[in-house]
């Protein structure tokens, strides 16, 4: 028996149930999905949320940062200013200038490395193309600034973060990346070693060949000196 207005009442029953159970129900279906902010708005970026159920998960990506190994940012900086990411960046929001020492020789470090976060679209292409794993995505989102024009243009020193910080925000990815780098390094050393070994062998072979060549060469030059002495 179709009561007049039955559809409306059914709809209202659903919303009322949702309203009431959102207060009392802890299971997934009715619980409030949005949680509090990850951390206090004023806290410095370095401080990570103490509570576990943060809204910032291990897979949240925001804007790129530069990595450096060890404590000294400029000492352990991975970026060598090869400018691949500058060329690959679709919105062209990265600006790099190479660093030169006094004699003008190019030392593998960026003098200027600027990323304009207001232009960056977090596409992560720079992370993929970087051969030196020097640039990764950060998950810090409290980036609002007062002035609109220069505020979001981050310079090299603001971008530089320690590898250890990277491990804290994206543990699995950082570990995977470090393992891969370690493995590549091992391979390179192995290849290097193999190459050295090969080179050494080649050198020995060449040396042996030269000795052999010298032995065979004196006979033809002194055939008269008494044949097989």
């Amino acid at each position, binding site marked *: 028996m179709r009561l*007049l207005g039955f559809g*409306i009442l059914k*709809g*209202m029953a*659903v*919303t*009322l149930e*949702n*309203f009431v159970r*959102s*207060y009392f129900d802890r299971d997934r279906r*009715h*619980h*409030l*999905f*949005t949680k509090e902010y990850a951390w206090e708005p004023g806290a410095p970026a370095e401080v990570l949320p103490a509570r576990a159920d943060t809204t910032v998960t291990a897979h949240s990506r925001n804007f790129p940062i530069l990595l450096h190994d060890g404590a000294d940012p400029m000492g352990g900086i991975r970026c060598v200013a090869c400018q691949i990411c500058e060329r690959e960046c679709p919105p062209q929001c990265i600006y790099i200038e190479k660093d030169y020492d006094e004699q003008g020789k190019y030392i593998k470090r960026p003098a200027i490395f600027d990323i304009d976060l207001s232009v960056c679209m977090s596409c992560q292409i720079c992370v993929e193309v970087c051969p030196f794993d020097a640039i990764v995505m950060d998950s810090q989102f409290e980036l609002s600034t007062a002035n609109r024009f220069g505020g979001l243009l981050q310079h090299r020193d603001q971008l530089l973060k320690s590898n250890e910080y990277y491990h804290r925000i994206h543990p699995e990815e950082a570990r995977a990346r470090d393992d891969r780098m370690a493995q590549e390094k091992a391979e390179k050393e192995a290849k290097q070693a193999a190459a050295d070994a090969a080179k050494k062998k080649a050198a020995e072979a060449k040396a042996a060949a030269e000795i052999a060549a010298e032995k065979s060469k004196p006979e033809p030059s002194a055939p008269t000196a008494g044949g097989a002495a």
Partner: protein
Amino acid sequence: MTQTLLNLLAIAVPLAVGFASLFAFTTWLERKILARIQNRIGPNRISLPFTRFRRLFGLIQPAADGLKMLAKEDIVPRDADKLLHLLAPILSLVPPMMVLCLLPLELPYATAGMRALQAAALDNAVLLFFAITSLNTLAVFMAGWASRNKYSLLGGMRAVAQMVSYEIPLVLSAAVVIMAAGGMNAQAIVEAQRAQWFIFTPWGLAAFLIFFIASLAETNRSPFDLPEAESEIIAGYFTEYSGFKFALFFLGEYLAIFAVSGLAVTLFLGGGAGPWVAAYPALSCVWFLAKIFALIFVMIWLRGTLPRLRVDQLMGFAWKFLLPLSLLNLFVAAAALKLAKPWLSWPVGALVLYGAAVALSRSHRADAAPRTYSYAE
């Protein structure tokens, strides 16, 4: 002369201050309830400056909104009608404020002379109520016209058409109660409901539903908020308003909601009557406000559930469904009151009303026949 002035002030000021602060509370209530319906938390971030309280469930959000509205720049279009542009929000605020005095809300300390907190214990209170609320339609049109903007004029005209066509079922359903109570004095109507609230009689319930639906449309709320919906013609008639004038419009709208639901409580839910009122007469004011907020909860609940009506559905619903039903309800109530045999007139009345409603809604289904498309050869 000064005594009467003091008396009036002693009643008018709490009305104005009380209902304005209730407005702030209702905006918070509305956002919290809507949020909870949609599995979110609702405003809870604003904290009182310079105090320890961090986040009082967002109770300070209305104050923050008010401050923001004050701080916002008040932009007036260049060739707008300056005078009318300023006058529209004021005219949308004055009628609800005036009408609030007509409600039989007994403030506890009201002097014995003014038994019911009615600044104007008028004899034809209900008629004056509808006369003054019809001024709202003017404010809406004035806002639409004064902004010299095609879309706000269109939005204004649509809002005026909607408010005018929903005013008739509103008045007719109130006429049923006036007939039953035998007078238009709000106090007399509350007295007449001492034995039994009008909502518990079949024709009373039908009148209450029609009144409630028509009041939703009258204050541009929930399913009928087409004129001011963001997704429709921009924001309807107050597109060109910003800053405090915009806030005045909202204050006017919420006061209109209080006024109309206050009248619904007086007409159908027995005004300030409730348990223990005999023991503590002050409780009648609490009961009155509690019932108003119950109605407001239903309005917010409807807003969280029902989708918005199209213009033609909106107008069709008013003229083809509500109006004939309220006319029929008038006859049924007259017959029931004349017959005065509840055991007979109630079931018959309920049956007639329900049958008419089903017949009316089914008769409109007819024109929703499957469309026939004709393609160009």
